[in-house]
């Protein structure tokens, strides 16, 4: 049997005409969910990589004490700590820049007593007793705190995992909806072409022969819908990428996808077509099994 020829006039079915559109919309939403999940995953990895092996030491200003002296004491102690690979004392401009999203432009911060911040890089694989370090530093320079970003990172990981779970749920629901739609369309096709199928059966066709025609039809419609959906999703992602790229916020993850991530999205139409094909095949075989 030629791949393109069909003994059943499935192309004439009204029920099959809207299937590519439905699959298209489903693939569109699935692609957006998948892209969001991948972008978030990437951002999370970057945040984790950036924060693992680092500490931030904060020395709050006190009216009666010279901040510079206390900073020197803390720096001295940190340099003497074996696990510390290096330190960087952030200047006032850096601190002002960090506070800018919350407190406004740097000029407005000029009169405010800003804390001193020290970025600490740990040696690879080194472990630090955070409580002990905190205590030593606070004894040398009261008001000194040490932050390993664990809580912030933990909250972020929880959020990211929740969003990823949501993405997986959306993908599953979209897949289930696609399967149900294909089952409905296939059953409608079986009903519409009942007499033709009966005839083809009577002249000796096996169930697989008839199922092949439905599955080929579903494959074509699924592929067409999938390509439509992923094309629309790509346009949407590119537009969103432009918009997000224009917003200078360190908290928003970039929406540009890597080539392999685009490839994953490009596989969605293939997956949609395969799901449609398999669903149609199983639906037909199951239905035909009930007739002689």
């Amino acid at each position, binding site marked *: 049997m030629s791949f393109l020829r069909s*003994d059943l006039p499935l192309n*004439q079915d009204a029920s099959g005409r809207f299937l590519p559109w439905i699959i298209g919309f489903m693939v569109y939403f699935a692609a957006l969910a998948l892209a969001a999940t991948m972008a978030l995953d990437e951002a999370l990895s970057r945040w984790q990589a950036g924060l693992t092996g680092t500490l931030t030491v904060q020395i709050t200003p006190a009216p009666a004490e010279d901040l510079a002296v206390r900073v020197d004491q803390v720096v001295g102690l940190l340099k003497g700590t074996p696990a510390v690979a290096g330190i960087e004392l952030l200047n006032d401009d850096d601190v002002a820049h960090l506070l800018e999203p919350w407190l406004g432009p740097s000029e407005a911060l000029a009169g405010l007593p800003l804390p001193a911040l020290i970025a600490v890089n740990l040696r690879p694989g080194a472990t630090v007793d955070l409580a002990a370090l905190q205590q030593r530093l606070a004894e040398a320079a009261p008001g000194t705190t040490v932050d390993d970003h664990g809580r912030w990172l933990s909250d972020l990981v929880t959020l990211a995992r929740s969003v990823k779970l949501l993405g997986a749920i959306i993908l599953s629901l979209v897949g289930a909806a696609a399967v149900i739609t294909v089952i409905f369309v296939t059953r409608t096709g079986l009903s519409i072409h009942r007499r*033709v199928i009966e005839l083809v059966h009577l*002249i*000796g066709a*096996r169930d697989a022969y008839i199922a092949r025609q439905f599955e080929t039809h579903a494959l074509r419609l699924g592929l067409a819908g999938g390509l439509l959906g992923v094309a629309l999703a790509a346009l949407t992602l590119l537009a969103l990428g432009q918009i997000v790229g224009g917003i200078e916020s360190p908290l928003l993850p970039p929406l540009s996808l890597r080539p392999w991530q685009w490839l994953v999205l490009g596989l969605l139409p293939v997956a949609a077509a395969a799901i449609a094909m398999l669903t149609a095949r199983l639906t037909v075989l199951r239905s035909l*099994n009930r007739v*002689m």
Partner: protein
Amino acid sequence: MILFENTGVRYDDGPPILRNISFTLTPGSFHFLVGPSGAGKSSLLRLMYLALRPVEGRVSLFGRDVSTIRRRDIPALRRRIGVVFQDFRLLDHLSAIDNVALPLRVAGVREAEIKRHVPELLKWVGLGDHLNALPATLSGGQQQRVAIARAVISRPSLLLADEPTGNVDDAIAVRLMYLFEELNKLGTTVVIATHNDGLVSRFDHRQLRLEDGVLRIVEPGPRDAA
């Protein structure tokens, strides 16, 4: 080859359509199936082309018991049977050539062979100029000839025809009967259900006469033998 033993058919809880039918069709035999409308001819044919299972008795086709045959073995059996339906049952979206090619394609015959044999047969039944015509553009008689060509294209062991000459003029009817006889000579068992008494008397073959669901066999010969 085809054996009916005390076979009965009824649809759901309705009255029996066929009762206590017993007969044997030997390979290469030729039979007319006659009887008034509603006598059960179509049901008897449906039993023979495996569209129906008996509710009583036994039907055996090519040595296989229809009541107990596994579902997956049915297609191979059906491929040995050619059927001309009373309402033709051509596929409207397929051309004459594709309609006739259908049994071959279903059986997995190569396209080269299909392209060689199908046009030849269509020419033989007088439709050489209508190879690519859709059924809707053909007359009733032409559609009937396409249906007959489809039934015989795979050289079946058993040919069942339900009123195959009902829509054609006498000349074509006789020509089609000759085609059936040619097939019969090649070993195909032929059963033709018909109301055409003229045809039955002209071609002297054994008759399976159905009346009120009961079968009587009338051997060929003088009419008063019936």
